[in-house]
């Protein structure tokens, strides 16, 4: 073994020592060598000087504001990604990828390909070179050119995708939806209107529209469809204002165990402290619910919001002693959205 290799081996040993990669016996042996071997000690002190300047664990500082901003932004992006994945073409693509990546028979892969071609034909426009014709929108709708429908201002194009474009043969395949404007007027207690609004929340409508929908539905939570829509908003909406409105609406329904489960999820995972406080205040109306107590123990004791932490501690302690707590309002701290 030459000197260079000795130095390299010693350098590796020093690193292992610094980064805790030695057993107790190895550490002891190394420390003994340090006391007796001058060269080793010199190398170690060289490394040590670096660690004094930049100790292990010296890392970029991430403050709470920055973390929350990133979490909120990621939430929006994840939902967009989830929506993108849910489109039909993505479903087919994922199915094919899953088929190809699994050790399945060639026959199954061929079946997958054939299904895709068949589906593509079903979606494709008619191959007329003379004019573009559109699919009927509904069985009772007159068969008219889509351009005529758009120009009459009754419809608009949404979700247009150019699926195929072959410059040599001039072939093109376009897939699109035609949306017609419609108006509904009636009572918010009408189940049909409630169904329409509840379904709209999951569609691509603006933040302010979703907020308006939640406000409209907030007193109609006796129907399960509305409850589901409010729950979906609380757990999935990227806008904290919308989630807060959903939390406040669901708070009135917290007698229901399914609603409490949603509130518990919000309490344990929402990035916005105001929303977690709203969920918390709804849940502590039902301290006989052991699942709530478990959530407080698992998550709320470590919450970044002091009110939640302090009150959770009291709740858990009193739960042990089996005494009932009066319900307090949160202090006038900042629980901004």
């Amino acid at each position, binding site marked *: 073994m030459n000197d260079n290799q000795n130095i390299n081996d010693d350098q590796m040993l020093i690193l292992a020592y610094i980064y*805790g990669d030695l057993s107790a016996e190895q550490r002891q042996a190394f420390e003994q060598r340090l006391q007796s071997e001058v060269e080793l000690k010199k190398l170690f002190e060289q490394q040590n*000087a*670096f660690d004094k300047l*930049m100790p292990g664990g*010296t*890392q970029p500082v991430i403050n709470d504001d*920055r973390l929350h901003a990133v*979490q909120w932004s990621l939430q929006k992006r*994840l939902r967009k990604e989830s929506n993108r994945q849910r489109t039909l073409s993505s479903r087919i693509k994922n199915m094919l990828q899953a088929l190809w990546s699994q050790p399945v028979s060639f026959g199954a892969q061929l079946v997958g390909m054939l299904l895709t071609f068949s589906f593509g034909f079903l979606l494709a426009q008619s191959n007329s070179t003379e004019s573009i014709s559109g699919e009927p929108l509904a069985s009772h709708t007159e068969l008219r050119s889509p351009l005529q429908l758009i120009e009459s201002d009754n419809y608009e194009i949404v979700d247009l995708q150019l699926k195929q474009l072959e410059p040599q043969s001039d072939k093109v395949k376009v897939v699109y939806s035609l949306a017609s404007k419609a108006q509904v007027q009636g009572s918010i207690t009408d189940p049909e209107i409630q169904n329409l609004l509840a379904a709209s929340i999951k569609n691509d409508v603006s933040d302010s529209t979703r907020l308006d929908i939640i406000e409209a539905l907030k007193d109609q939570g006796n129907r399960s469809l509305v409850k589901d829509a409010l729950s979906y908003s609380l757990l999935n909406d990227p806008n904290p204002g919308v989630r807060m409105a959903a939390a406040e609406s669901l708070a009135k329904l917290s007698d229901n165990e399914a609603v409490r489960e949603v509130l518990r999820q919000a309490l344990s995972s929402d990035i916005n402290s105001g929303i977690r406080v709203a969920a918390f205040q709804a849940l502590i109306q039902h301290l006989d619910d052991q699942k709530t107590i478990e959530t407080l123990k698992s998550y709320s004791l470590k919450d970044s919001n002091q009110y939640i932490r302090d009150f959770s501690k009291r709740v858990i302690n009193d739960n042990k002693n089996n005494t009932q707590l009066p319900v307090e309002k949160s202090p006038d701290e900042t629980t901004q959205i």
Partner: protein
Amino acid sequence: MESIEKDLIEAAQQGNVSAFEQLINGTERKMLSIAAGFAASPDDAEDIYQDAMINAFRALPKFRKDSQFSTWLYRILVNTAISSRRKLKSKINRLITFYDPQNDENTSISGYEQYGSESNPEAQLSNDQLSKAINKALASLSDKEKIAFVLCHQQEIKIVDAAQIMGCGEGSVKSYLFRARDKMRSQLQSFIG
């Protein structure tokens, strides 16, 4: 793997965003800090972290439960950081060349990461010059050296775990780590004294 984590992974693999968020809940700060170790600026770190999480969400159907979820996630984060680093390399060089901290009114929130000890905020290094020098020294490391340094030295991840994340042997991790420290030490010599 805990059964709760297993259930969340299965739900997330079906496209459940909330399940995925619960999986990453509590790890965001550490992962953002790792991303920041590779980034030229806080904005870049945030982009790296978010891109990595989107990549992870997309790749979830391919996750085999024979490895730790956290290890898998860190691997995606590191790979995303390296891809991003390669794309931004020329931009990083321009930033270092033209950045003049003496003329920047907002040196405390300028385009580089502030370094400190997360476990002891009161002892956080407030020396802007040192932070800048650290960032410059990190930029001089190769991809593997940087990964080893960020994971083992900055984030205090065990060498054995870093080896799993990097997909190499422990000996290789130590080699990269040694070379990284050597380069950093020579770049920061004036601060060591």
